[in-house]
């Protein structure tokens, strides 16, 4: 996926983890220097730094030094000042803005220029050419609108030489229907989305790859055999992708014949890849962040500067480190179990992600 993961063949996992950590430290310094440089930097961070009694460019010397920042507040992305997030160096570039789900009030807006393409090109390197054939077309059956997902999946498809067919699903509308107990309308809407997808699958025989959400995958497979429709690989994202669902998807929905690639991501961080399938993991869904461009750490909810031990449950803490967007120490609304580095990703992962249980009021999740 990146240099740390890909260029150290033959080294032990510990050696590769050390190299990855060094790369992360170096990358962190570069990104901080970029965002806090008056020439290239981001107006929000330059303003932020002007109120500090320390200079991030001097004092951030490694990744762990990011603890000197306060926790990133999502309100900063809801203040209607989206231009303050555009680094000066990119002031004349075409700017996208993408939004988070919007299930918790005003959506958070994040600017993008090329990040979504870079993230998905790196993700592409993790896909098998056999199960996600180059030149094969894709069906993107999921949320588009203000999210980056549609453009990102479409770019992934194009990057692999395919053409992407798209059907929209608006999760904000689904959340409204669920909250008002209009379940019949919710299912009608789901059927409407699935019917459009099936129409495309029937019409375009070169569609061999699918992006969709767990709920829509279930609904599709209730109607047809995706094996019979020529699908070879499914890339699945969304909330609450459990180990049991993972097993159910591989064994039953996809009949043991279609590759299943779960991912965890959001507009703020990017895309975390699933550890390659290993029966020894008993279908546990383990994600690794796209280090050094972003990190996921599992921290003590009561003391979120502290990373929990391996195998322990904690809250997900995200850090994004790209030239387009700097987001240190953001406490996500998810929790999971800290896992060890693996061959493909020599840095920590997070397993069994689910909504953070520490919130007083449950958030409507799982609509994807």
């Amino acid at each position, binding site marked *: 996926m990146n240099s740390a993961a890909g260029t150290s063949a033959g080294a032990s996992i510990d050696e590769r983890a050390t190299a990855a950590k060094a790369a992360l430290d170096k990358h962190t310094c570069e990104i901080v220097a970029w965002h806090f440089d008056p020439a290239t930097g981001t107006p929000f961070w330059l303003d932020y730094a002007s109120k500090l009694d320390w200079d991030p460019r001097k004092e951030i010397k490694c990744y762990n030094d990011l603890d000197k920042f306060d926790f990133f507040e999502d309100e900063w992305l809801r203040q209607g000042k989206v231009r303050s997030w555009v680094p000066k160096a990119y002031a004349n570039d075409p700017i996208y803005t993408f939004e988070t789900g919007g299930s918790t009030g005003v959506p958070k807006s994040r600017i993008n220029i090329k990040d979504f393409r870079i993230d998905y090109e790196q993700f592409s390197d993790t896909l098998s050419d056999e199960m996600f054939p180059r030149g094969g077309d894709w069906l993107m059956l999921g949320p588009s609108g203000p999210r980056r997902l549609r453009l990102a999946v479409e770019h992934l498809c194009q990057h692999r030489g395919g053409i992407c067919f798209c059907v929209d699903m608006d999760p904000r509308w689904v959340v409204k229907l669920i909250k008002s107990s209009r*379940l019949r309308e919710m299912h009608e809407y789901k059927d409407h989305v699935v019917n459009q997808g099936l129409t495309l699958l029937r019409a375009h025989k070169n569609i061999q790859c699918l992006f969709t959400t*767990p709920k829509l995958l*279930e609904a599709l497979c*209730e109607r047809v055999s995706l094996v019979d429709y020529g699908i070879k690989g499914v890339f699945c994202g969304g909330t609450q992708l459990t180990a049991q669902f993972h097993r*159910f998807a591989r064994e*039953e*929905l996809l009949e043991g014949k279609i590759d299943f690639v779960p991912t965890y991501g959001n507009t703020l961080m990017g895309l975390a890849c699933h550890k390659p399938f290993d029966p020894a993991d008993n*279908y546990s869904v383990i994600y690794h962040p796209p280090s050094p461009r972003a990190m996921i750490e599992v921290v003590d909810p009561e003391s979120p500067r502290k990373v929990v031990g391996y195998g322990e449950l904690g809250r997900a803490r995200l850090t994004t480190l790209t030239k387009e967007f700097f987001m240190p120490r953001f406490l996500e609304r998810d929790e999971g179990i800290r896992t060890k580095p693996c061959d493909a990703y020599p840095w920590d992962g997070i397993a069994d992600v689910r909504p953070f249980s520490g919130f007083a009021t449950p958030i409507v999740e799982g609509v994807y």
Partner: protein
Amino acid sequence: MIEIPILRFGKVYESIETVTLVHHATGEPFARVHQANSGMVRRDMVRMADDALEKFSTADLIAMARKAGELFMTAPLPLGKSQQSFEDYIAQLSCTTGMPITYCRDNAGKIASVLEKMDQVLAGLTRGLDLKVLDDGYSDASGHMLSFYRAGRVFGAVLPSNSPGVHSLWAPAMVLKAPIVLKPGREEPWTPYRMIEAFAAAGFPREAMGFYPTDHGGAGELLRTADRAMLFGGGATVRPYENDPRIELHGPGYSKVILGDDVADDWAKYVEVMATSIDRNGGRSCINASAIWTPRHGRAIADAVGKELAKHKALPADDPNATLAAFANPAVADQINNVIEHALTEDGAEDVCAAHRGTPRLAHIGRCAYLQPSVVWCESREHSLANREFLFPYASVVECPAAEIADAIGPTLVATVITRDESFVHSLMNHPNVDRLNVGAIPTWRISWDQPHEGNLFELLYRQRSFQFEPAA
């Protein structure tokens, strides 16, 4: 640790996700219940052979149900990969629910009784229909052609944990030829699992039975997918399905004992029937009375019934004298107690049982919490405690002119009305508030097997069709 798997088409399936049940008294992990993901529930239901029971005659199925009742009470039956004796079942049921052993046995007997008397139960549900009509699709009854078809191709049930006796309600579905898909209550997987195994041992095809412990989402998929279903739960659970004719709702019962104007002065004669209506089965059923309505003497009635109920004390579940259930989750008892205490701060209500109990309502034995009986005298029927139902022996007592009672009582699953006044009976008989009516000093919980209880499963599963038959020449 005991493993309770999913049964998919009657076959054991072990999930990656499990829920651990603890022993109510020790808090120690006791059983692991395998959880179905919601997609599995729906996928299996749409693939279920809905004609799996059609090859049997109704008479055969009645005989098999009788056998299942016997096996339920006596035989070692599979529980996942192990075997469960009847005594194991009773002990396990008590461990995770906190119900006294004696009540567990009583409820098991009730279930067996329904299975063994299935012919009477069906006679009640079908009003004496010749059951061959279910085999042939039609019959000529005294010159009148009758035809029914089964609209409930797959029957689902979202079940509770409060009282095992409720499982007698879905059992006739199997004999009415509808394959079943059950979602057990969280703390009470034992009874539906054992019933399925008893059915299988008695000859019912395993593929006609599914057992899917699952979460809220899975329950929703079950209810969405089933042609016909039963849903047990509190008001908030059943409310979204109130206008869904496919689903028979079993929410709070708000059952009542009502005195007529003509007997109100003789109230002392009826203290026993009022008390037993409230306290039987630990006061955990929807057919337990949660209110007493009388034209007068309300305060005195509350005091006398409270004195009677105060005899129940918190005792360990395995004590042969135990009559109150422990709360498997002690926090629930705390919450209920807080709700009542808060409501008692409003003017016009008093827990008259308190003086007779001599102890607080909430009692603890080790980690177990108990709620001891409460009888609340409400000066007004508008008081917030006047029409409440809780999971322990609780009742309010309110006064109301007899002429206003039928309109004022609100939805009432069982009304026991004690009166000789035919016009008063008539006012209740004609009122949609009352689901089941007992006239006389009959405890609210007493069931007559030849009468439908809380809906009619036959009417839910079958529809009558117009039919004419003229053999070809």
